[in-house]
């Protein structure tokens, strides 16, 4: 696709959901951190797959199977190029970020031994906490945490002091889903490599907001979900360096991941198929490729600038609401704003905003340790995508004022 100048109206026109009414009001969708809306090209691609190409992949000599296989593998290539991975077989299709992280925890985890250490941070999503706790229980490893400041920034001095030759893996989020903080992953990766530890970056909240180049980052694993970056649900990616993936045992056994099976013994298929047991979400994988083509048609620099402007504008406007308190005031942030308004409960505010057609997230955002840190039950979170506008921010501000007026 050809790159076009950043034209917000043209972009919005491609997302049908943005034009629907909710409770009789024009939808204002500010829950992009949970999932993004889908452009028409992605929706069409899914339809087209089921209408014209549907067949199982990697296992048929007939035309449909060959067409489906090449569409699926082309999607893999598109994704490889987008994140600048060295090889397409370093791109593993999974169900999503959670599945990608579990794959590493179970497979790479098999290589760990009692006493080995894993480092995560205090701002991880539950899906980047629980698989490691389970691994530590299984293998007798030790889980350590990088603490964060009240501004919502990781303490990298303490991180450096946690690292040792016992550290085998550091698993950290690129961007906090609850706070919007962009972590200094360059430093985190370099420091971990200095002690010989591997690094997994949870990219669920970053790849839709900024260019990602896994070779420049030099991370060993990078995980993300399709549905948060304008693709289908139920499909995601695990990027892993070939040298590491090839030493890891398979995660699940089944069809497609084998080379030869006898009743006694199986030899495994090569990368990436070793990690893709069973019939995958074929339509999803192909649709995800289309989502990346769509992103390729946009100017990522212009998107970053637009989202930064939205973040600054919304933050300034929100400050006019009496009794507002922000959670996550890091210097480096993406367009995510978490807040509470004195004298109101997030559930009540979220319910009333919904009545006005405004979708925000309320609750703990699957990050209970962060909520415990601030000693709050949850927050109201507005998370923007490039298709959001300042006019929508204005609607949210009026909605919040109205809700607060009713609740106080």
């Amino acid at each position, binding site marked *: 696709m050809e790159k076009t100048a950043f034209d917000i109206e043209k972009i919005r026109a491609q997302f049908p959901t943005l034009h629907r009414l909710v*409770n009789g009001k024009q939808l204002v969708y500010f829950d992009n951190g949970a999932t993004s809306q889908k452009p028409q090209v992605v929706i069409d691609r899914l339809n087209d797959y089921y209408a014209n190409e549907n067949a199982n992949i990697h296992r048929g000599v007939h035309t449909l199977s060959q067409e489906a296989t090449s569409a699926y593998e082309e999607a893999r290539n598109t994704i490889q190029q987008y994140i600048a991975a060295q090889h397409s077989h370093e791109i593993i299709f999974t169900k999503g970020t959670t599945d990608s992280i579990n794959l590493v925890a179970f497979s790479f985890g098999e290589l760990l031994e009692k006493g080995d250490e894993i480092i995560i941070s205090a701002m991880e999503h539950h899906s980047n906490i629980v698989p490691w706790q389970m691994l530590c229980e299984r293998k007798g490893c030790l889980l350590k945490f990088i603490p964060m400041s009240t501004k919502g920034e990781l303490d990298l001095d303490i991180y450096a002091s946690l690292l040792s030759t016992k550290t085998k893996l550091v698993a950290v989020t690129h961007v906090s889903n609850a706070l919007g903080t962009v972590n200094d992953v360059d430093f985190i990766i370099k420091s971990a490599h200095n002690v010989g530890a591997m690094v997994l970056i949870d990219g669920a909240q970053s790849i839709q907001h900024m260019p990602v180049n896994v070779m420049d980052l030099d991370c060993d694993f990078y995980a993300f979900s399709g549905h948060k970056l304008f693709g289908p649900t139920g499909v995601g990616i695990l990027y892993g360096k070939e040298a590491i993936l090839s030493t890891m045992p398979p995660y699940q056994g089944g069809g497609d991941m084998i080379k030869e099976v006898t009743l006694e013994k199986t030899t495994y298929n090569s990368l990436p198929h070793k990690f893709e047991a069973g019939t995958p979400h074929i339509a999803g994988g192909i649709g995800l490729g289309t989502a990346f083509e769509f992103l390729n048609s946009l100017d990522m620099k212009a998107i970053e600038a637009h989202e930064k402007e939205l973040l600054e504008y919304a933050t300034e406007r929100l400050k006019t609401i009496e009794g507002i308190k922000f959670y996550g005031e890091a210097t480096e942030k993406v367009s995510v704003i978490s807040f509470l308004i004195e004298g109101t*409960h*997030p*559930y*009540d505010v*979220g*319910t*009333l905003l919904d*009545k006005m057609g405004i979708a925000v997230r*309320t*609750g*703990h955002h699957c990050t209970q340790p962060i909520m415990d840190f601030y000693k709050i*039950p*949850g927050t109201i979170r507005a998370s923007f995508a490039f298709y959001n506008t300042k006019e929508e921010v204005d609607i949210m501000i009026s909605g919040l004022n109205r809700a607060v007026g*009713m*609740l106080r």
Partner: protein
Amino acid sequence: MKTMQELEQEIIDEFAIYDDWMDKYEYIIELGKDLPLIDASKKTEDRLIKGCQSRVWVDAEKQDGKMIFTADSDAIITKGIIGLLIRVLSHQSTEDVAKAELKFIKEIGLQEHLSPTRSNGLVSMIQQMKLAAIKQSVN
């Protein structure tokens, strides 16, 4: 004492005058603000239902063969709805509470608050109220 059906109808009639969501929610919020629902000493961990969104405390007792419920929530809309539930279910017999179907919530257009995605503790609260009644009926 009015029956559960009569109390439900009373609430449905009260809400019938509101044709606008705003008025309806203002009324629920007022209910939530007005009602001291549970004794502070009963806001204990074992009476707490942790929803993802809001927290609910519920206490059940049996007096003279009737179930007496008190409950509270940190969210005011949840609290207002709790007030309505208690109005219908409290002072009813254990048998009636155990098999209550509670059609009024849907009738007054608040069904969304009982959807699993809300996870505001209300669904668990109704389950606990019924379970308490079942337990009391065999005691």
